[in-house]
């Protein structure tokens, strides 16, 4: 990702996944940063994770507590986290209590203690946990301002990168806000019954940073930040040149309809009700690619990989050998409280790691469920498809439509803007028999077949049948015979009948 820096101070990578994306590369060496948030928002974990990661990079950390939890209790809470290693404590990480000094000797005594401790323990990173206590002890705002200013001076000559932890948000005019180089804010937000942890870089001198709030999780590994996809992937790579290759499905008549297959780097949507065959088309797409050395990724929210593989085998679609060889990677996002951003992170990480050329995401509904914040899905899908295009990946997305609806509801507004090609499949009743129909609603960049075709799924895979000649309204699900007296269709009349979801205006081209 391109880093925009206004200055060339050396950076210290945080070691916290996603956090360096927010700061465009890590904290500036020697900077002073405020980490603020109400109790329980994760300040202590983030600080300790920074400390232990600094030690892994050869640094030495000093963690000073004021009126905060005891060190023993803190270690007890940190012990389950993977980054915590008590063997470093009392060696390259030292924990000191400073409230006694503050109480007996005031701000000057604290300042003296900090300066001496940084030198004694040769600290390259300092944490002061409980800065609010200092403000309470300070007699006046001026004396607190003076303390912060003097602390900055002490720290600047030590070269120590410093983090002040505070549970109070006293506003932008507070000395600790104005005199620090950066402010990181942690909070909880409610979304329905869900509690979401959020992180925001409110200020970051010396460098650009990703603005706004981003989600984070605390897992067994520690803190994991998930930057909003549309914020860090918001700028597509310029001058991207598609390889202009075709990526066939491996279904001959379908590939003919598409003039050879999907163009590389494009994103296609496959709409249709449950059971209409969407997943089968996606599986075939991946299997065909894998057979010619194009690694694929199957990302699903709805069923386990084993179950999917068994279904494909039953249909004669060869994915199992490719799963075993690694030519197809498969990820099942079974967790029901996932985040859109962590899903996208996972997809992109897999694409980069395995050189994936074909991605099948089943389906957009799963992405939507992990989305928080109105209007994000369109921007996130745009960002994701741009990034995948930049890696010359050809992407297929599925979206479930209603079984009995006569209108095709687009999952997002401006679907046409996000995807290059739109296919529609469904089952229709024809003379008391269910038959499968496929229609190519839209293609970008090339002409495609415009007729509605029947298709078949069997143990031999997918077979495209003839176009329907004597039936109409197939896509609406109410197939009926064409009236015999009607004049031939006007091929110049637009064929798109894509309708936005309920509540939106009907859109006809």
């Amino acid at each position, binding site marked *: 990702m391109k880093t925009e820096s206004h200055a060339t101070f050396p950076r210290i990578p945080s070691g916290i996944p996603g956090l360096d994306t927010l700061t465009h590369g890590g904290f500036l060496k020697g900077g002073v940063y405020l980490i603020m948030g109400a109790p329980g928002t994760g300040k202590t974990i983030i600080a300790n994770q920074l400390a232990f990661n600094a030690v892994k990079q050869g640094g030495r950390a000093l963690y000073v507590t004021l009126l905060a939890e*005891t060190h023993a209790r803190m*270690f*007890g809470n940190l012990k389950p986290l993977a980054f915590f290693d*008590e063997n470093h404590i009392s060696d390259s990480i030292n924990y000191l*209590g400073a409230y*006694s000094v503050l109480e007996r000797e005031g701000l000057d005594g604290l300042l003296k203690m900090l300066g001496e401790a940084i030198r004694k323990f040769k600290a390259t990173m300092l944490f002061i946990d409980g800065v609010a206590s200092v403000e309470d002890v300070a007699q006046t705002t001026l004396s607190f301002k003076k303390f912060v200013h003097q602390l900055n001076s002490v720290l600047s000559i030590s070269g120590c990168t410093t983090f002040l932890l505070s549970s109070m948000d006293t506003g932008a005019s507070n000395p600790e806000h104005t005199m620090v180089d950066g402010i990181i804010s942690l909070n909880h937000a409610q979304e329905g019954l869900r509690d979401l942890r959020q992180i925001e870089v409110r200020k970051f001198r010396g460098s650009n940073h990703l603005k706004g709030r981003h989600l984070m999780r605390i897992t067994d590994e520690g803190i994991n930040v998930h930057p909003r996809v549309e914020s860090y992937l918001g700028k597509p790579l310029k001058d991207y040149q598609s390889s202009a290759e075709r990526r066939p499905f491996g279904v001959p008549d379908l590939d003919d309809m598409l003039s050879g297959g999907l163009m590389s780097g494009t994103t296609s949507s496959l709409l249709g009700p449950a059971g209409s065959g969407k997943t089968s088309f996606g599986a075939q797409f991946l299997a065909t690619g894998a057979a010619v050395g194009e690694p694929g990724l199957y990302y699903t929210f709805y069923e386990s990989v084993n179950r999917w593989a068994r279904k494909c085998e039953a249909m004669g679609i060869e994915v199992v050998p490719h799963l075993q060889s690694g030519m197809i990677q498969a990820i099942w996002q079974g967790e029901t409280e996932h985040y859109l951003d962590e899903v996208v992170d996972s997809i992109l990480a897999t694409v980069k790691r395995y050189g994936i050329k074909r991605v099948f995401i089943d389906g957009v509904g799963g992405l939507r469920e992990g989305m928080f914040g109105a209007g994000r899905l369109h921007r996130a899908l745009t960002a994701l498809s741009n990034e995948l295009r930049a890696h010359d990946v050809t992407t297929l997305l599925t979206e479930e439509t209603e079984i009995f609806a006569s209108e095709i509801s687009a999952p997002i507004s401006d679907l046409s803007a996000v995807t290059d090609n739109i296919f529609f499949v469904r089952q229709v009743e024809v003379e008391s028999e269910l038959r499968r129909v496929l229609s190519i609603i839209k293609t970008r960049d090339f002409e495609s077949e415009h007729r509605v075709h029947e298709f078949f799924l069997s143990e031999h895979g997918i077979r495209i049948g003839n176009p329907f000649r004597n039936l109409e309204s197939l896509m609406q699900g109410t197939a009926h015979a064409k009236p015999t007296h009607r004049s031939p269709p006007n091929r110049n009349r637009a064929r798109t009948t894509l309708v936005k979801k309920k509540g939106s205006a009907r859109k006809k081209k």
Partner: protein
Amino acid sequence: MKFVLIAEDEYDIALALELVLTESGYRVATVPNGQEALYALAKEKPDLILMDIMMPVLTGLETIQKIKADPEYADIPVVLMSAAPAKGTQEEYGWVAFIRKPFNVDDVLRVLARQLE
């Protein structure tokens, strides 16, 4: 009444130990770091030193080394405390007991009673 010197930088722990030991019949003085523990020794020799390891100015291990190097104070029993595993050994530093935090106050009193019998 036995005199115990507590060297502990964590305010809450120092306060809690001071209260409990005083209630248990000890005379107590508390200092926040190892350097001040040495100053306190010079004023009055305690019967026992209960000392944290991670402290500013002089750590617990640095302080016990200085104490054991001085013939006048080398016989004072030193009990070390820490939230981290012990660095070094009893033979190396000469502590009489090591208490791991978080501790149960009864364990502390038992150790003190045993050392001060």
